[in-house]
């Protein structure tokens, strides 16, 4: 093997390895540093983590990969942090002589053990999902500091510019600093309220990946997997392992089981009824069932329980009266608990499967969603067999309202079948 070829393969490996390590290790380093030095130093923590990776790229390019790249990164990160904070405390000491109330942070050993990493990330999750910042900002910040996503990747996921994401991130961090949000698990009497806000953000993160209009399938899947990883972290900790958290994880598993079946090679969405069932991930379905069973403890019924129930029935491909009756009743309950236009439309679809299309059309006319393309797509679908003129009219209305290429394509496919 020629030396040149060796260098080439090393670079190729690195090109794969560094982004991967960045994703996983960057967020761990930030979480540990934030836990130790507080939210005020979040940007310093980010700088230290980024600087560590810069050193890695420089160093590994000519010295080759170290035997244990992760350990190498941790050592460098620790040294950089110690240097920075030693310097910082010298400065602090000097200032302290003049202003004597500054709290002193002794520079202790930085603990990058697995236990401390997990604990730090869990605390960070609560800080990042603090209700003082908006849900959208929480998702952005979680992607950046807990999932190690690049600014470009986040911008891509939200279909916006890097500049917008940068602004959103710095405003969110500033808010967390100004509010002096502690990096800690909330106390026992407030943990459930805070958990609700955390799970809502994780649900948003998952949905962003699952329903995103972005056509980068890899990125979308990564968003979902990260949401699942963070939810799993909550399930693993006895203080946060609540029934509704298990219900959320169960819901994610059921949905994720259809990843491979719901998009074709041209990145087009495949309708549920047209999906190849053999591509559904049985392993994820049984994990979903497991977490669903875990979620049935206690006596509170959350929206996640109901949505997991609906998702469970969708893992059974064969149509039956029982399946759709169950889905309908779950939607009936879900809508009482939390109304959403999507749930209202899906309920009407389930109703057509149980009580017939005419009953569903009558119901659809009552739900006033005249500005939604999905409303007209549903009506078109319901009229398809009985009245092709009305079906066509509704699909055309849907088309006029559709905002994305993917939606237009789906409606066009429906029109073509008339």
């Amino acid at each position, binding site marked *: 093997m020629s030396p040149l070829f060796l260098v080439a393969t090393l670079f190729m490996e690195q090109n794969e390895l560094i982004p991967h390590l960045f994703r996983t290790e960057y967020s761990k380093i930030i979480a540990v540093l934030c836990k130790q030095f507080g939210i005020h130093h979040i940007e310093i923590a980010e700088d230290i983590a980024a600087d560590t990776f810069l050193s890695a790229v420089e160093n590994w390019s000519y010295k080759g990969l170290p035997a244990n790249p992760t350990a190498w990164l941790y050592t460098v990160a620790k040294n950089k942090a110690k240097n920075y904070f030693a310097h910082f405390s010298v400065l602090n000491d000097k200032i302290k002589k003049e202003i004597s109330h500054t709290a002193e942070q002794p520079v202790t050993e930085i603990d990058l053990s697995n236990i401390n990493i997990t604990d730090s990330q869990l605390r960070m999750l609560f800080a990042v999902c603090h209700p003082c910042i908006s849900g959208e900002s929480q998702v952005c910040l979680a992607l950046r500091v807990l999932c190690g996503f690049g600014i470009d990747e986040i911008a891509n996921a939200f279909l916006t510019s890097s500049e917008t994401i940068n602004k959103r991130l710095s405003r969110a961090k500033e808010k967390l600093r100004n509010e002096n949000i502690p990096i800690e698990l909330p106390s026992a009497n407030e943990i459930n309220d805070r958990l609700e806000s955390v799970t809502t953000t994780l649900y948003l993160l998952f949905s962003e990946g699952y329903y995103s209009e972005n056509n980068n399938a890899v990125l979308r899947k990564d968003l979902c997997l990260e949401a699942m990883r963070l939810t799993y972290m909550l399930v693993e900790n006895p203080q946060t392992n609540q029934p509704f958290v298990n219900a959320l994880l169960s819901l994610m598993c059921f949905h994720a089981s259809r990843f491979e079946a719901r998009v074709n090679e041209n990145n087009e969405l495949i309708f549920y009824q047209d999906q190849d069932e053999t591509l559904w991930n049985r392993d994820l379905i049984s994990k979903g069932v497991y977490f669903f069973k875990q979620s049935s403890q206690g006596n509170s019924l959350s929206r996640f329980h109901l949505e997991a129930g609906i998702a469970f029935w969708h893992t059974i491909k064969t149509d039956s009266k029982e399946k759709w*009756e169950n889905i309908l*009743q779950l*939607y*009936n*309950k879900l809508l009482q608990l939390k*109304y959403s236009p999507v749930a209202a439309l899906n309920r009407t679809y389930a109703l057509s499967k149980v*009580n017939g299309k005419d009953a569903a059309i009558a*119901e659809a006319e*009552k*739900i006033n969603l005249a500005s939604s393309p999905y409303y007209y797509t549903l009506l078109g679908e319901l009229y398809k067999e009985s009245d092709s003129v009305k079906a066509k009219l509704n699909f055309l209305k849907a088309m006029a309202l559709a905002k994305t290429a993917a939606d237009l394509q789906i409606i066009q496919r429906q029109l073509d079948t008339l």
Partner: protein
Amino acid sequence: MDEFILIFRHQDGTKIASPEQMQIWMKQTMDWIGSIAAQNKFSSGTGLPFADAKVVWHNSVVTNGPFGDIKETIGGFVIVKASSVDEAVEFAKGCPVLQGDGNSVEVRKIAKNDAVH
């Protein structure tokens, strides 16, 4: 948007329905409430089981159940959001309780704490 309570009045609460009939009514009631909820017009509601029912009278006299002296009983209620009493009445017309002869749904506006009502 106001809130209205729809109170289900049963002519005779002592009538026992078969489990099959109960199941049909239950589904109809759930679909009816689901329909209101799908319009984002549902506020809250519950069924009121006849078991363990008591009536407390003047001078702390307590009797079992609403049966006996009063024949009519309340089986449950829902609170809906509606812009007028007529809209609330339209919701009430779909209530499965009305399939029973003599049963009724009373529609009443919920008082707001705005010193007007």
